[in-house]
């Protein structure tokens, strides 16, 4: 059983999508399961995944979300690494080509013959052996390199377009403000008779030392509109006569990695700045609380907020089926339940949704609503334009969990208690006194319980079909977070989740 293999046990998220528990989060404020699909993703920090440097978002924007120091190979898109060569300073012209290299290790014929040497650096790809020398980029004196950026052919045009649209935005904003100013009634209690011209205001402003309010109105710059042409240059003559050397022609991937030029010849490939990566924080869409908030530092693996489902919801592990799966034949499955919380849980396994159990805590909803309002009116929302555009849908789209089961389960006779997690118990060898246990419990140790659940695969299943059984797991959850300030005591809720288990494939019929 590999770590990478998908888990056979899936939990239905509150949005209706099935996920293994390690992809789920648990919002303590709602309290509901959430998955990557039904939360807001926000950028927490930018960093370069190669040099592991944290880059503030303003700088990231300035650098066009690229790292200042790291380059990607234009040939195979792997990271380039700097290679040092020692180059004699005096006779630079000849030796720089095949001077003894530190890494290529041409055996140095005369190591100390030339005392005045200088370290020069070039970039080299260790995957496809491409080097900056291949395209004639001169070696640099510093390792991190002042590698020249290739000026894009259309950079000037892009810049004018950018300026144009920026001024357009500014103009629209000003017009809107002007419109609003005229529309809204004067806020002053008394109509100011003295200040009809607005001179007094500007006088006072100037006295305080503020800049004058009247910013000159911006006008969009006139730019030449782009023109479409139907004329295309004719193909060169030799394209029909010269045999093509595929090694000199770039691949589609190589062209796409250099979108500005899209070079056709390998000799025009140029190192590309490496794009930055982000750390994300996830936010519950319903109550706007963070589910995950990572630490800023790129190398840190810690979270400041981590509401993983595996910390709050009992984990169900499939151990094995009792017999080979046969259609219509009663079977049993062994499931291991683990309690990750510090409180005892009472668990029942049901085949129909519990009626009264589903979250009806009005206090919760109310508290959430208060929070929502507080958040939506806060300036936080306005600033999110900088980060990811937030899909701010408070209203949750309910979707029904697809009915996947093709087996019927025999619900357990009664609920059972799952003991709290106690890390110190791991070390002491206490023999638990055998207590009276319901007979479906096979084995119990600390916060783990192994149960035997009887089920029957549907009779019409063919051999090779996957048997999926589903049940409702109702569990008591002790919430330590208090939304309302007057409540200090942890509250206990009875929650449930739907769980689907792929028990395995129907075995080949024995005597057919």
């Amino acid at each position, binding site marked *: *059983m*590999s*770590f*990478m*293999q998908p*888990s*056979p*046990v899936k939990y239905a998220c509150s949005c209706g999508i099935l996920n293994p528990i*390690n*992809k789920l*989060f648990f919002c303590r404020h709602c309290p509901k399961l959430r*998955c*990557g699909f039904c939360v807001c*993703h926000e950028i*927490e920090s930018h*960093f370069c*995944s*190669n*040099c*592991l440097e944290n880059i503030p978002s303003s700088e990231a924007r300035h650098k066009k979300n690229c790292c200042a120091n790291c380059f990607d190979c234009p040939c195979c898109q*792997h*990271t380039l*690494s700097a290679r040092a060569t*020692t180059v004699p300073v005096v006779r630079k012209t000849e030796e720089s080509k095949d001077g*003894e*290299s*530190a*890494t*290529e*290790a041409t055996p*140095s014929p005369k*190591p100390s013959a030339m005392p005045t040497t200088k370290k020069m650096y070039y970039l080299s*790809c*260790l*995957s496809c052996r491409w080097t900056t020398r291949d395209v004639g980029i001169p070696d640099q004196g510093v390792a991190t390199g002042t590698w020249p950026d290739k000026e894009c052919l259309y950079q000037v045009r892009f810049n004018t377009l950018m300026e144009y649209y920026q001024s357009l935005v500014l103009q629209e904003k000003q017009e809107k403000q002007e419109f609003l100013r005229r529309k809204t009634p004067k806020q002053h209690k008394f109509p100011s008779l003295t200040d009809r011209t607005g001179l007094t205001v500007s006088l006072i402003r100037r006295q305080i030392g503020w800049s004058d309010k009247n910013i000159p109105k911006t006008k969009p710059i006139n730019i030449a509109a782009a023109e479409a042409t139907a004329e295309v240059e004719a193909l060169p003559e030799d394209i029909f006569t010269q045999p093509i050397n595929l090694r000199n022609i770039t691949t589609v991937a190589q062209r796409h990695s250099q979108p500005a030029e899209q070079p056709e010849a390998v000799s025009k490939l140029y190192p590309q700045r490496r794009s930055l*990566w*982000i*750390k*994300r*924080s*996830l936010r519950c869409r319903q109550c706007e609380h963070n589910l*995950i908030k*990572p630490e800023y530092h*790129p*190398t*840190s*693996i810690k*979270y400041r907020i*981590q509401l*993983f489902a*595996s*910390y709050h919801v009992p984990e169900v*592990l*499939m*151990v*094995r089926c009792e017999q080979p799966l046969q259609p219509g034949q009663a079977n049993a499955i062994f499931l*291991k339940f683990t309690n990750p919380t510090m409180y005892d849980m009472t668990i029942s396994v049901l085949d129909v949704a519990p009626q009264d159990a589903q979250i009806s805590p009005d206090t919760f909803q109310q508290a959430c609503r208060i929070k929502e309002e507080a958040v939506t009116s806060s300036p936080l929302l306005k600033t999110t334009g900088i980060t990811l555009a937030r899909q701010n849908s408070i209203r949750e789209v309910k979707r029904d969990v697809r009915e996947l089961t093709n087996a019927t389960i025999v619900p357990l006779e009664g609920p059972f208690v799952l003991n709290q997690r106690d890390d110190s118990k791991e070390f002491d060898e206490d023999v638990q006194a055998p207590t009276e246990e319901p007979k479906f419990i096979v084995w119990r140790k600390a916060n783990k319980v192994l149960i035997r659940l009887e089920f029957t695969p549907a009779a019409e299943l063919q051999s090779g079909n996957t048997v999926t059984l589903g049940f409702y797991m109702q569990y008591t959850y002790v919430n330590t977070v208090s939304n309302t300030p007057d409540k200090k005591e942890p509250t206990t809720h009875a929650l449930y989740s739907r769980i689907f288990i792929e028990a395995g494939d129907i075995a080949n019929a024995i005597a057919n």
Partner: protein
Amino acid sequence: MEIPDTYYSKDEYVETASGNKVSRHTVLCGSQNIVLNGKVIVQSGAIIRGDLANVRTGRYCVISKNSVIRPPYKQFSKGIAFFPMHIGDHVYIGEGAVVSAANVGSFVYIGKNAIIGRRCTLKDCCVIEDGAVLPPETTVSSYMRYTAKGTIEGGQGNPYFVPAAMQDEMVNYTKSFYEHFVRTPAPAS
């Protein structure tokens, strides 16, 4: 899914005082330079090249069958040097993997037949897929997944590529792997 028990014969494996379980059918060169920090499983056919440089692993590591742990070298103008290699805690190295990294962090999963080139850096909580090929000097940062296609995906907070609770998952996985790696029960006589 629960990890099934893996059985080994008493004659094949050596168990040390610190709980390491090392197969006799391994090639541990320069064993004085190899430090296994306890509860480490080294399965048959694995090669650890302690003769080239020091190799140190943390606790609860699994070095699977036919994998090769080989300290990386770097060439200088005056010669070459092999660098010591550090592997963190709770690291799983899959079958047939070739690891020549300079540094492997903790809670790292390396799939089977993956090739980690010379002087790569694998940060904590990263995943290398089965059969992935990392060219030399690649850095895989935390919560990233290096795919068999050769791309890097994920990032902390992205739940689709590396589980957000990778640390706990690897701790659980390596611990239960160790607990389920048991001696074949002696035949009742």
